[in-house]
């Protein structure tokens, strides 16, 4: 029963204290939505979970084992969707996704991933012709192409239209059904049924608490 959790995480960004004593737990099949105003550290927390950032204090564990002990092992468990879409303008959509899928052990079918987000017709189109929304869909199709338990989505719905958002909701549901976990930070309401909410505002150190 894979368990991904973090205990009393303290994180600085340069001189600023982003949050302190933050803890979270998530198990297979669950979803966690990060809420909070801009600058409250949603992206920072996702990058901490991915292992790009090291917390100043506190630990993040996967099945009880600290993720910084085996960063490569932890990377194998997760997919990260950040603000930038990593689509090469010169390569076609198919080549972009094949490249990312080959980096992982079990590359799934590319066409199915593209069709899931309704961009099957774009397979041979070079990246430079794509709109922002289409690039985001290619990025999301990338994580479908090779399965991983944990999805870390940093505001996945930016630049997506209503139809793409419903595709995303459907994919998240099937991913959770097949025993995956999703942690997403988002402002727009995406319909994740019985998702737990983590509001980063209550972990911000107030003036007197320090």
């Amino acid at each position, binding site marked *: 029963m894979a368990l991904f959790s973090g205990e009393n995480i303290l994180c600085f960004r*340069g001189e*600023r*204290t982003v949050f302190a004593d933050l803890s979270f737990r998530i198990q297979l099949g669950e979803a966690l939505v990060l809420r909070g105003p801009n600058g409250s550290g949603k992206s920072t927390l996702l990058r901490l979970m991915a292992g790009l950032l090291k917390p100043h204090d506190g630990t993040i564990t996967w099945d009880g084992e600290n993720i910084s002990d085996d960063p490569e092992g932890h990377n194998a468990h997760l997919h990260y969707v950040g603000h930038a879409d990593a689509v090469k303008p010169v390569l076609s959509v198919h080549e972009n996704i094949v490249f990312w899928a080959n980096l992982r052990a079990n590359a799934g079918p590319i066409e199915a991933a593209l069709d899931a987000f309704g961009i099957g017709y774009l397979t041979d189109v070079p990246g430079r012709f794509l709109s922002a929304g289409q690039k985001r869909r290619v990025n999301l199709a990338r994580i479908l192409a090779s399965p991983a338990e944990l999805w870390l989505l940093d505001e996945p719905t930016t630049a997506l239209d209503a139809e793409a958002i419903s595709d995303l909701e459907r994919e998240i549901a099937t991913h959770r059904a097949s025993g995956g976990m999703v942690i997403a930070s988002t402002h727009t309401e995406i319909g994740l049924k019985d998702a737990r909410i983590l509001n980063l505002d209550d972990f911000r150190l107030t003036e007197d608490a*320090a």
Partner: protein
Amino acid sequence: MYLYKFGKMIFHKYANPTRFLKLASTIQPWAAAATIGFLLAGLYFALLSSPGDYQQGETVRIMYIHVPAAWMAMFCYTAMAAAAAVGLIWKHPVAELAARATAPIGACFTFLALFTGSLWGKPMWGTWWVWDARLTSVLILFFLYLGYMALSNAFDDPARGSKASSILALVGFVNVPIIKFSVDWWNTLHQPASVIKMDGPAIHASMLIPLILMAFAFKAFYIWVMLMRIRGEINEGKIRALRLRQVHGGPPSRTTILEKTTEGAR
């Protein structure tokens, strides 16, 4: 793993900026006094009471500042690399600032070593610059300092700058012996036999005293100015924190948190 724990325990006490400032303000006056004292003694021996060298005549007096400056150039780079290593491995904020503070001082001493070296070379070899192995290595060291300083100021976020330049200081430190070896090797390849060796005859006693005194004077000066610059860097850190809090109205800054945690951890 033990060394890591041991290091953390030893440095933890002075990782806290305000406690370091208390230590600094006690050492600083002593460093200032030592600098002035050694400098006066060194000058007295260097200029007044020691005889001219029988072979080089009076120009040997330039050696009394050229050699200590070259020593300081090397010493500062080593100190910078050590501070950078401590800053990177143990995430020790004051060590990172010490490396940033050492760079300009080291660069000044390297420039002085080059300047006095060429002034010493003129009467002896008739040219302002000679591609002697040591002078060339010091010249390359000067560019390593410039690279460090340029990189540490090339980023908007100074923490990023000091991390990147710490890595460069370590990479540079690994390369210094390689550069030294290859320049010496290159020098012997193109060396016209007639050039007198740089340090001339063995230094005899009466010349040693001014040399050592000046070396101590430079080291005391280094400690004095470095402590000053670290204080400035710590202030800069606090200013940025306060400005950020004004902008974000967020919680207290990292330095205050550090002080709280290390206060508690004592």
